[in-house]
C-alpha cells in the first residue's frame, strides 16, 4: 500500500459519484425528450406516419350514359383492354415485346415510349402501356400465352361508344383527352387516359355525366410500391341522361339529308320543345374520337370546306327568306292591319328610286294576307313592311325567338340577327334606309336565323302561340293536348287567336291548295295533313364565307350560286305535334324539294315515331335497361337545364 492511496480512493469515489450523477441527469433528460415525442407529440407523428405510408389513388368513375327517348343507347361505355408491361417482371423487355408482337400488332413507337417512361421513373414496378384498344380475341391470345410473356398484364378500362354514329354526332358530341390547360381543374383530369366531353351534350353536361372519382387508400413502402389496400371508397358513376332524341328518326333524316352536300334539319315537339332530331350534314363518326383520332383524319375533318364538325342547325345562320313572312304577318295582324287587306301585285314596286321585285314576274294580282302567305307574295309584304317599320317587325320576330340565342345546352349556339334602326346605327354608324325595311320584310338583307330558330318559330305558331323553347331532354309529361293530363309546358306569347288562325290557314294553303308554293308536297294521309312555309334564301350574304374559303372550281361555282332551300312546317294540322325545319344549301330542287323532304319526315313520324310517343306519354316512363348498378336515371326537365 502507498501512503496516498486512501486519498486517491476517496477522490475516485467522490468523482465516480459525481460522474454517475451527471449521467443520471443526462438520462433523465433523454426520458423527458422521450415523453415529449412519444406522449405529447404523439398525434402529430401518428399523422405523419400515416402520410408516409398511405397513398391515395383515384378511381375513375363510369361516365353517365346517354339514351334516346326510347331507351336506345346513344353514348355508352364498353370495356376496352390494353396491354401493359411491368419492367421488373420482364427481364428482357425487347424479347418479351417481340413475342407479344406475334399475337397483336404493336404501335411503332412502343420501344421509344417505354424507354422514355423508364427514364422518367426508376420505379420498375410501375406498369407501362404497350398497346391499347385490344379486341377481345387479342386479349385472349395474350392471356393464353401469358407464360411466355413475363410482365405483360391486361388492364380493363372503359371506352365510349356511339352506336348512333353520324346521325346524332352533332347533338351528342364526343369525348376526348383533357387539354393540358384544364388538368388542374379536377383531380380526375390528371388520370392517364381520362376523357372529357369535347362537343355537344358530352361537353355541355360534362359535370353531370362525369360522376365523381372514388379513392383507394393503399399502403406503400418508402419506394412507393403498393403493399396492400387499406380502404376503398368506390367511384360514383355519372348520371345517365335520357335525351329527347329519337335514334331511328335521326337515322332516317341523316340518310335522306346525306344526299346533299350541306344541309340540316330539326324536328321538335311543338308543345314540349323536345328536340326529336337535329341533323347536320356532312357529319362525322364520333367513335373516331373516342378511340383516339389520328392526325390525318383530324386534319381532314377540320379543313373540309363543308365543315363536318359544325352543327349547322344551331351554328349556321342563313337569311330566313320567305319563312320570315310568318313573323311579319303576325306583326301586321297584331298591329291592327286587317287580314283582308288587299294589295295588287304587278310583279314589282318602285320605292324611293329603286325597283323591288316579286319573285313572280307577272305578279299575283289582287291578293290578301292568307294569299300572300300561300303564294309567298313579296309585294304584299313590301307594302305591309313599309307600313310597320323595321322596329315593329323586329319586335315580333324576337317574340318568335329570332335574333336571340336559343336556350339549349349545346356549344356554339348562334343568335341569328334581326336588324333594327339602333342596331344599324351601332354596327354600321349609318341611318336605316326604308328600302332596307322592304328587303327585311321578305327575310333577306340583314336578317339571319338558324334552322333551330325557324323550327322554334314554327312550333310557336303550331302550339297556338306558346313560348316554346327547345329541350334536349326527354320530358315525362304528356305532349298530347287532348289528354286530360296535359298541362302547357310554356307560357303564352300573348298573340291573338284570330291572328294565329290567319297564319295557320295561310300555312295550310301553302301545302294543301293548288296555288300554294308547296302544293306538290302535300300528304295524302287525312289525319296527317301538314302546314308549312317555303323559303328561298339568297346566297349573296353567305357567299362572303365562300369567298374566304378560296377559289372554287367551275362546277362548284354553279353549285355555290344556287339559293338555299328552306321549309318549315308542322303536323298534324288539326292536332299539331311536330314542327320541322329543313335547310338545304344550294339546293337544286328548290324549296319544293325541302317541302317534300318535310313530308317524308312527317310520314316517318306517323308510322315509326308517333305511335311510340302515344304509348309512353302520360305514364311514368320506363327507365332504359340498367346495367352494372347504374345510378338513378335523371329526368332533366326543360326547366332544370336552363
Amino acid at each position, binding site marked *: *500500500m*502507498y501512503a*496516498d*492511496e486512501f*486519498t*486517491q*480512493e476517496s*477522490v*475516485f*469515489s467522490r*468523482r*465516480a459519484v459525481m*460522474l*454517475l450523477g451527471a*449521467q*443520471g441527469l*443526462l*438520462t433523465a433528460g*433523454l*426520458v423527458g*425528450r*422521450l*415523453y415529449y*415525442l*412519444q*406522449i405529447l*407529440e*404523439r398525434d*402529430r*407523428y*401518428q399523422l*405523419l*406516419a400515416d402520410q*408516409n*405510408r398511405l397513398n391515395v389513388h383515384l378511381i375513375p368513375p363510369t361516365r353517365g350514359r346517354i339514351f334516346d327517348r326510347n331507351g336506345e343507347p346513344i353514348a355508352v361505355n364498353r370495356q376496352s383492354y390494353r396491354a401493359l408491361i411491368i419492367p421488373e417482371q420482364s427481364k428482357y423487355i425487347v424479347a418479351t415485346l417481340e413475342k407479344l408482337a406475334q399475337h397483336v400488332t404493336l404501335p411503332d413507337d412502343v420501344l421509344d415510349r417505354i424507354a422514355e417512361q423508364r427514364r422518367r421513373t426508376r420505379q420498375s414496378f410501375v406498369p407501362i402501356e404497350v398497346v391499347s384498344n385490344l379486341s377481345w380475341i387479342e386479349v385472349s391470345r395474350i392471356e393464353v400465352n401469358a407464360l411466355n410473356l413475363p410482365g405483360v398484364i391486361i388492364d380493363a378500362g372503359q371506352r365510349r361508344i356511339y352506336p348512333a354514329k353520324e346521325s346524332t354526332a352533332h347533338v351528342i358530341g364526343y369525348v376526348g383527352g383533357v387539354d393540358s390547360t384544364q388538368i388542374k381543374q379536377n383531380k380526375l383530369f390528371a388520370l392517364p387516359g381520362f376523357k372529357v366531353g369535347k362537343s355537344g351534350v358530352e361537353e355541355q353536361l360534362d359535370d353531370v355525366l362525369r360522376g365523381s372519382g372514388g379513392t383507394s387508400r393503399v*399502403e*406503400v*413502402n*418508402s*419506394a412507393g410500391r403498393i*403493399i396492400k389496400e387499406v380502404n376503398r371508397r368506390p367511384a360514383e358513376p355519372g348520371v345517365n341522361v335520357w335525351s329527347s332524341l329519337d335514334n331511328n328518326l335521326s337515322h332516317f333524316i341523316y340518310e335522306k339529308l346525306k344526299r346533299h352536300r350541306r344541309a340540316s334539319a330539326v324536328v321538335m315537339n311543338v308543345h314540349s320543345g323536345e328536340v326529336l332530331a337535329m341533323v347536320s350534314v356532312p357529319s362525322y363518326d364520333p367513335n373516331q374520337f373516342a378511340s383516339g383520332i389520328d392526325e390525318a383524319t383530324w386534319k381532314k375533318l377540320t379543313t373540309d370546306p363543308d365543315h363536318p364538325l359544325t352543327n349547322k342547325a344551331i351554328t349556321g345562320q342563313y337569311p330566313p327568306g320567305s319563312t320570315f313572312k310568318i313573323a311579319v304577318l303576325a306583326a301586321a295582324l297584331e298591329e291592327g292591319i286587317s287580314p283582308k287587306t288587299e294589295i295588287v301585285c304587278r310583279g314589282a314596286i318602285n320605292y324611293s328610286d329603286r325597283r323591288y321585285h316579286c319573285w313572280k314576274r307577272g305578279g299575283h294580282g289582287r291578293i290578301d294576307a292568307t294569299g300572300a302567305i300561300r303564294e309567298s307574295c313579296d309585294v304584299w309584304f313590301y307594302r305591309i313592311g313599309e307600313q310597320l317599320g323595321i322596329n315593329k317587325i323586329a319586335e315580333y320576330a324576337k317574340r318568335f325567338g329570332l335574333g336571340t340565342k336559343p336556350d339549349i345546352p349545346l356549344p356554339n349556339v348562334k343568335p341569328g340577327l334581326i336588324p333594327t334602326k339602333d342596331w344599324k346605327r351601332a354596327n354600321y354608324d349609318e341611318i336605316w334606309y326604308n328600302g332596307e325595311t322592304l328587303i327585311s320584310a321578305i327575310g333577306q338583307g340583314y336578317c339571319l336565323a338558324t334552322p333551330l330558330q325557324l323550327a322554334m318559330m314554327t312550333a310557336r305558331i303550331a302550339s297556338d302561340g306558346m313560348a316554346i323553347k327547345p329541350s334536349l331532354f326527354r320530358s315525362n309529361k304528356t305532349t298530347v293536348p287532348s289528354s286530360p293530363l296535359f298541362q302547357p309546358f310554356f307560357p303564352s306569347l300573348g298573340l291573338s287567336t284570330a291572328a294565329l288562325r290567319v297564319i295557320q290557314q295561310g300555312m295550310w294553303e301553302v301545302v294543301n291548295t293548288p296555288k300554294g308554293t308547296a302544293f306538290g308536297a302535300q300528304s295524302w294521309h287525312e289525319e296527317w295533313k301538314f302546314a308549312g312555309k317555303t323559303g328561298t334564301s339568297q346566297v349573296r350574304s353567305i357567299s362572303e364565307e365562300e369567298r374566304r374559303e378560296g377559289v372554287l372550281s367551275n362546277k362548284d361555282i354553279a353549285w355555290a350560286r344556287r339559293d338555299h332551300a328552306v321549309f318549315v312546317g308542322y303536323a298534324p294540322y288539326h292536332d299539331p305535334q311536330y314542327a320541322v325545319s329543313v335547310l338545304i344549301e344550294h339546293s337544286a330542287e328548290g324549296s319544293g324539294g325541302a317541302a317534300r323532304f318535310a313530308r317524308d319526315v312527317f310520314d316517318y313520324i306517323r308510322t315509326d315515331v308517333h305511335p311510340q310517343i302515344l304509348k309512353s306519354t302520360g305514364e311514368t316512363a320506363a327507365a332504359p335497361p340498367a346495367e352494372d348498378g347504374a345510378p338513378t336515371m335523371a329526368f332533366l326537365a326543360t326547366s332544370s337545364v336552363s
Partner: protein
Amino acid sequence: MGALKSVNWTIVLLVMLIGMIGVAILYSAAGGSWGPWAQNHGIRFGAGLIIMLTLVFVNIAWVYRVAPFLYIAMLCMILLVEFIGLTGSGAQRWLGVGSLRIQPSELMKITIVLFLAWYFHRLSHEEVGRIRYLIVPLIAIALPTFLVLRQPDLGTATVLFLGGGALFFLAGVRIWKFVLAGAGMVGAVFVVWQFHILAPYQENRIRTFLDPDTDPLGSGYHITQSKIALGSGGLTGKGYIQGTQSNLNFLPEKHTDFVLSVMAEEFGMLGMLTVMTLYFLLIFMAFVVATGTRATFARLIASGVGVTLFIYFFVNLAMVMSLVPVVGIPLPMISYGGTAMLTAMLGIGLVLNMYRNRGVWLSRTGAAE
C-alpha cells in the same frame, strides 16, 4: 473462491437481456425474419459472450502488463486503416481480414481506457496533480482522436475524446484544469471561427458536419423519419413487427444506428424505458464494481468502461431523438455491427475481471498481491 461465484452474474444477466432484445429487434427490423441480421447478431453475441466470460479469468497482472502494448498495436491498426482501409458510408474505417471487417477505431475506445488506467495507476496523487505527467496521456488521447477525425468519423472521435477526458476526471486530475481546458477550447473555437483562420470551404464542411439538417434529403431525412417512428409509437407502441416506419422502409439505418427507433415504434415509451433501464443498470453496475476494487488500475478500468458505455448510450439515444446531429454512433449489443459489440463485451469482460480481482492490490510496477 469458486470460479462461478467469482463472476458478477447481475452484469452477465443484464448483458444477456440486452443482447436478446437486440436479436428480437433485428428480427423485427427485417420484417420478421432471421436473416439478414438477427441470426448473425445472435451468433456474434454468443461468441462475444464466450470471449467476455473467458476474459474474466485472465490474470489481472497480465492485463496490466499488456495494456500499453495493446494501445500501441491498436494505434498501428488505425494508421493502417489510413493506408489500406476499406471505405464505407463515405468514410474509411474498416480493415479487411479475410471475410472479417474490423473497425480498429471502435476497439480503440476500450484500449484507450486500458492505457490510461495503466498510466494513471503508476502515478501518485501528487503526480496526477502535476501538468507534466499529463503530457503523455494527452498525446495518447489526441493521436487516435486526430486519426479517427481524418477518416472522417466525428462520432468515434467524440467518444474517444470524452472517454479519455472522463478518465482524467476519475483519475483525480484537478478540476480547475478541466475548467481551464474547457475555457481554452471555447476560446480557440471562437478565435478560429471569428477570424476565419480556416478556408471558407473548410468552414462549410464543418458547418454541414455539425448540422446535417441543412441537407433534408440526406441526414435530415434520417432524423425526420426517426422522430416520426418514435412519436407514432406512443406509450405502448404499434406492436411487434407492426411498425410501419420500419417495415415499409421509411426508417433508414434501422438495423444499425437507428435500431432503437424500431424499438420505440413497436414498443412505445414503455419499451424504450425498459431498454434504457437495463442499459443504465449495466453502466451503474460498472461503477459499483469500480468503487469496490482495491487497485487504481481496476477502478479506472471498470469506471472507464462504464463511462464509455454511457457515451455510446447517450449519444445514440440523443441522435435517435434528434437532440444531437447524426454522427454515427451505434448502441452496442443492440445495433447490428460486430466491432461495437465486441468492444462493449470486451469492456464488460474487463469489468467482470476487475470484479473478480476486486481484492487484488497491484503495485505501481504491476506486481499483484
